[in-house]
C-alpha cells in the first residue's frame, strides 16, 4: 500500500512542479500584466524607461519615465523564425525518414539514423557558435546576394540582404535543430509498419516510391503531425542559438527575410541584466510576462499535438 502511495506521490510531483511554476510566473508577472494590458501584444515599444530619472506613477503602477513594454516584434520574430525552421525541416525530415526506413539496407539505416539522432544531442550553443563563425559569413557574403537576385520577384526576398544575422539565418539554424525530431519519430513509425503492407503494394505493381508515399505514409499522418508540432514547439522555445544569430532586433518588424529579429526566449536572456537594475521592478515583471506567454504558447502547441495525434489515429484506424 505504502509503495503505491509513494509511486503516486512521485507521479504527482511532476505535474505539481509545472503548476507551481505557472502559478509563480503569473503571480510574479501580475503587476506587469495589469499595467501593460493589451498594448503588450500590439505594440513594438520595449523601453525600460530612463533609469536615472525619478519614478512616476502611471495607470496605478510605479514605473520609470518613458517605460513602455510592447512585444509584438518578439511575437513576430518568434513565430516567423520557427515557421521558417519548420518549412525547411519538414521536407528534410520527411525525406530522411523515408530514405532511412525504405531506401537503404536495414543495418546502414540504423547507422545513419543514429547520426541523425545525434544531431539532436548537439548543445544549442554549439549550433550558435557554428552559426556565427561559419554560417553567417557564408550566407551574408555568398548565399543571400544570389538568393536576393534570383528571387527578386518575391517582395520579401528582395535586397538589402543585411549582415547575415537575422530571420532566415535563425530559421536555418532552427531547422537543423528540429530535423532529428521529425526524422527520428517518423522513421520509427514507418519501420514499425508490417511488412505485409509493403509486400502487398509491390505485388500490385507499385514502385517502392509509391509504396512509401501512397501506402505507408498515409497511415502515419498522426505520427507526422505530432512530430511536426513538437518540433515547432521546440523551435519556439529555443534560446541560445537564436540569441547568437538573430541580430537581436529591438522594436521593429522584419522588413524582409534577411532582417534582424529577436525572439521571446532570446530576449529574456538578453534583457534580464538591464531589467534587474530597474528600481520599480516593472522591467523584470514584464520579462516574466513574456515567459508566461511563452509557457502558454508551448502548452498550447503540445496540447494541439496530442489532440491531433488522437483524432488522426481514430481516423486511420
Amino acid at each position: 500500500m505504502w509503495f503505491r502511495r509513494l509511486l503516486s506521490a512521485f507521479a504527482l510531483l511532476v505535474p505539481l512542479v509545472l503548476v507551481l511554476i505557472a502559478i509563480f510566473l503569473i503571480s510574479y508577472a501580475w503587476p506587469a500584466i495589469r499595467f501593460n494590458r493589451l498594448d503588450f501584444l500590439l505594440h513594438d515599444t520595449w523601453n525600460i524607461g530612463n533609469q536615472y530619472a525619478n519614478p512616476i506613477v502611471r495607470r496605478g503602477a510605479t514605473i520609470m519615465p518613458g517605460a513602455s513594454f510592447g512585444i509584438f516584434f518578439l511575437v513576430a520574430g518568434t513565430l516567423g523564425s520557427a515557421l521558417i525552421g519548420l518549412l525547411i525541416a519538414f521536407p528534410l525530415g520527411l525525406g530522411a525518414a523515408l530514405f532511412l526506413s525504405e531506401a537503404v539496407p536495414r543495418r546502414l539505416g540504423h547507422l545513419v539514423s543514429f547520426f541523425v539522432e545525434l544531431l539532436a544531442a548537439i548543445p544549442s550553443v554549439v549550433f550558435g557558435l557554428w552559426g556565427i563563425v561559419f554560417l553567417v559569413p557564408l550566407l551574408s557574403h555568398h548565399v543571400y546576394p544570389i538568393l536576393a537576385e534570383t528571387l527578386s520577384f518575391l517582395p520579401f526576398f528582395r535586397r538589402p540582404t543585411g549582415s547575415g544575422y537575422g530571420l532566415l539565418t535563425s530559421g536555418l539554424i532552427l531547422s537543423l535543430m528540429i530535423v532529428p525530431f521529425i526524422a527520428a519519430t517518423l522513421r520509427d513509425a514507418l519501420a514499425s509498419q508490417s511488412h505485409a503492407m509493403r509486400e502487398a503494394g509491390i505485388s500490385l505493381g507499385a514502385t517502392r516510391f509509391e509504396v512509401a508515399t501512397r501506402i505507408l505514409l498515409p497511415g502515419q499522418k498522426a505520427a507526422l503531425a505530432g512530430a511536426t508540432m513538437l518540433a515547432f514547439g521546440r523551435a519556439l522555445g529555443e534560446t541560445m542559438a537564436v540569441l547568437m544569430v538573430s541580430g537581436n532586433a529591438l522594436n521593429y518588424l522584419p522588413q524582409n527575410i534577411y532582417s534582424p529579429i529577436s525572439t521571446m526566449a532570446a530576449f529574456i536572456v538578453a534583457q534580464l541584466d538591464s531589467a534587474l537594475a530597474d528600481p520599480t521592478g516593472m522591467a523584470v515583471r514584464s520579462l516574466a510576462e513574456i515567459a508566461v506567454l511563452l509557457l502558454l504558447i508551448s502548452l498550447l502547441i503540445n496540447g494541439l499535438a496530442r489532440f491531433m495525434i488522437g483524432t488522426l489515429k481514430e481516423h486511420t484506424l
Partner: protein
Amino acid sequence: MPCSSSHRLFARSCLILLAACLIGSPLRSSQAKTVHMIETGSTLLYPLFNLWVPVYTASHTNVRITTEATGSGTGIAQAAARLVQLGASDAYLSPALTHLHPGLLNIPLAISSQMVNYNLPGLNDRPLRLSGPVLAGIYTGRIRYWDAPAIRALNPGVPLPHHLILPIHRSDGSGDTFIFTQYLSFSAPSWMRTTAYGTTVSWPPVRNGMGATGNPGMVQALDTNPYAIAYIGVSYRSAILKDHLGQALLENRAGHFVSLTAAHVMAAVRARVNATPPNQAISLVYAPGAESYPIINYEYVVVEKHQPNPSLALSVRQFLDWAISAQGGNAPSFLNRVGFVPLPPRAIRQSEKQISEIR
C-alpha cells in the same frame, strides 16, 4: 548470523565517523576565520578581478573570493539583495536605486574608456574623425551612407565609400551602452530628447542595424561585417588591432578630435575629478578640456555598507583599500593588462572615505 554482524559493522563505522567528526570539529573551528566573499557583475571588470584575486588571496590566506561575470545590472541587484558582498558595475547607482537602498555605496576602483571602431575596407589604418552628433545621426538612421556630407565634412580628403553604414549596438544590458549613449546624449540634444541613456536603451530602428551580445560579440560582428561601426570597451583593443579594424578619433567638448591614449584619458579624469561628489555618482563622459578623451568612466564596486558581521566588513574594507591603492590593485602591472587607468589621488581619497563607511 551474517545479518547481525553486518549491523554491528554498520554501527561501528557510524561510531568511528561520529568520533572523526568530533575530533575534526576543533580543526574546523580554527579555520572558521576564513572569510568568503563573492564578486559578481560587470563583464568589463571581471578580467581585472581575476588578475587581482589570486595575488590578493596569496598574501591574505584567510580570504576566499569567488568572481562571476554576470553583468552590471545583476551586480547591482545582487549586492542590493545582499546575495553578494561585491557587485561590479560600469554604471553608478541611479538616484531611484539609492533612494530604494540607502545603504548601497558605489565606489570607483579604476577608470575605463571606450573605443568607437569601424570596418571600412582599405581605410581601417586611417583614423576617421567622428563626433557625437554624427554618431547620433548614424545610430538614428539619419546618416545612412559612409560618404554622407556630415562625415565627409569631418574627414576632408578621405575617399569614403558610398556604402550603407551598419551600426552595431549591444543587445544585452551593458555599461558600454551606458557611456556610449551618454556621449551621444551630452553632445547631441536631439538624442537626449528621443533616446537618452541607460545600460539598455530603446534603439531607434535603423535598417541594416543590428545587436550583438557582449564585447566579444561586438568585435566578431564588426570583423565579419564590412562597413559596420561599433562601440567597444578598451579591454578589447588587442582584438581590434589583431583584426585590423579601424579606431575613430572622437570629438571632445572643446571641439578637438582626440585618440584613445592614457594621456587623453587622464586629462579627462583631471577635468572631472574635482566635480565628483562625496558619493562618487558622476559621469566622466564628455569632460571639458582640449586634451580630454570624451568616453571614459569610473568602474564601480557596489557594496552594502551594513555587512552582517564585523569580520566580513573588515575583510571587504581591507580588500577594497588594497584594490584602489597604487601599490596594490591600481598598480600598472594590473591595469595595463586590461587597458584601465589608475584613480587619481583625489578619487582615491574619496573612495577610501566611502570604504571606511562599510561596517
